[in-house]
């Protein structure tokens, strides 16, 4: 496999409601910031790939308009995933592996404020049996939380600790949307949204964008003296039929861990795309991260831009490795209900 490195990452401050700013106006600042930081332009990019969801904008082919944010003349090689931009990064990785590109720009964007996110997300379900019931995202997450609690895989105390810690960690993240601290009684007195999840167990409605640049080994050092290497990347999906899944386990995540041979790696930091408080202790135990600092950025509980938060987990791991002299970091991105589709990315800083 060709070695590929992350050479830059930029994130728009996460907003509760971006108001009049449209998607293009959210993307431009992060792409420009990346280019300025690295002293490059679109001409240095071989392949551009974005991640977004047209249902969030409520317009067909809305992602095409997003391209107006970048320089497309002379014509560029470009692609899009109707997924979190973490998968746009995966596609870019493949493009570099195939020898079609040496450098790639990835960006993700999403505004959840204009629509009804619960209704929109329910449309990703199987269209015959589940979507017509309009199950909202919180109820689906609550289903898994209930299974995990009932089987004693996680505890209510762990969920509480996750929420309190996310708020405390938001101080490490200049772009966090939610920064106010809470205590145990704030949590216990919060109204249930869908038992066992209360408002504080759920991520905030968020608007924003992020961008990242990756490059092959030959190009990476032209862009930066400190590339962070993508040592391993793997993603797997489980059945779209919720009834056929075991929500208390994740065989696919286990398979990804084996594929990436993670068990002998001493991770110093991890960023997990855990949108609901019960998901963090669950994944920590699945991924053997009990003693590893996880979601030092606060994670999705302090800002959860749809179609971006997975890329952000990779970006925040990249930043943590760069800023803290760590060697190994693990990033996780997810898609679908109840952690249906998961990506693991093993990042390494060279000493």
């Amino acid at each position, binding site marked *: 496999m060709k070695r590929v490195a992350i050479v830059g990452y930029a994130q728009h401050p996460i907003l509760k409601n971006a*108001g*009049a*700013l*449209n998607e*293009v*106006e959210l993307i*431009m600042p992060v*792409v*420009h910031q990346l280019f300025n930081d690295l002293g490059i332009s*679109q001409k240095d990019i071989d392949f551009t790939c974005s991640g977004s969801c047209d*249902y969030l*904008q*409520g317009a067909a082919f809305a992602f095409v*308009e997003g*391209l*107006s*944010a*970048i*320089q*497309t*003349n002379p014509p560029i090689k470009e692609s899009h995933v109707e997924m979190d931009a973490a998968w746009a990064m995966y596609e870019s990785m493949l493009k570099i592996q195939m020898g079609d590109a040496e450098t790639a720009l990835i960006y993700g964007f999403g505004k959840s*404020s*204009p*629509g*009804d996110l619960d*209704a*929109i997300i329910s*449309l990703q379900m199987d*269209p015959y049996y589940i*979507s*017509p019931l309009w199950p909202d995202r919180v109820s689906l997450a609550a289903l898994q939380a209930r299974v995990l609690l009932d089987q004693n895989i996680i505890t209510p105390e762990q969920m509480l600790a996750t929420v309190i810690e996310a708020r405390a960690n938001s101080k490490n993240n200049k772009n966090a949307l939610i920064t106010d601290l809470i205590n145990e009684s704030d949590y216990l007195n919060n109204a249930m949204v869908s038992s066992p999840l209360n408002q504080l167990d759920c991520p905030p409605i968020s608007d924003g964008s992020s961008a990242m640049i990756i490059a092959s080994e030959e190009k990476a050092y032209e862009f930066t003296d400190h590339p962070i290497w993508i040592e391993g990347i793997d993603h797997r999906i489980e059945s779209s039929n919720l009834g056929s899944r075991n929500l208390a386990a994740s065989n696919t995540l286990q398979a990804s861990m084996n594929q990436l041979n993670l068990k002998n790696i001493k991770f110093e930091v991890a960023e997990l795309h855990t949108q609901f408080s019960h998901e963090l202790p669950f994944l920590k135990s699945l991924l053997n991260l009990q003693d590893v600092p996880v979601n030092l950025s606060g994670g999705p509980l302090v800002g959860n831009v749809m179609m971006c938060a997975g890329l952000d987990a990779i970006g925040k791991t990249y930043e943590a490795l760069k800023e803290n002299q760590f060697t190994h970091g693990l990033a996780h991105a997810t898609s679908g209900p109840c952690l249906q589709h998961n990506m693991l990315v093993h990042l390494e800083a060279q000493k």
Partner: protein
Amino acid sequence: MSSEDTPKDYSESPINLEYFYTAGSATTRFLNQVKEGNIVGQACPKCKAVYVPPRGSCPRCGVATDIEVPLTDKGCIESFTVVHIPIPGNPIVPPYVCAMIRLDGANISFLHLIQEVEIEEIRIGMRIQAVWKPKEEWTHSLENIKWFAPIDEPDVDVATLRFQES
């Protein structure tokens, strides 16, 4: 077999999503001017191309179009088509003409109606000017312009309108 036992081979599940649509801050600035009867395009700070209606960025350069450029309501027909098929809900009776309108000083065109002229006389390069609705009816929409109508000026060679990169 009673009717309740008849197997169903389909079910209806209508999808209806509601959005609070925002035009974007650049288009909002444009529409606020249109409400006052002014057409204000936006120019790219790099290649100087003037966009009307502006969408906030220059797709040629990938930068925000932050220079406001007041334009006239005169221009020429860059291209047109004669519509013969009625569109449900559209009050205009066919045949009528939709044209790409290139305002003087702009580098892109937009779609609008051509009226007050025989269809056979309409041609590419023809000079035209906006016919506005009464001021009381103005809103945040290019529909403040009822249509464009020909004016007595010599035709323009549209080949000369091609954007020249400076």
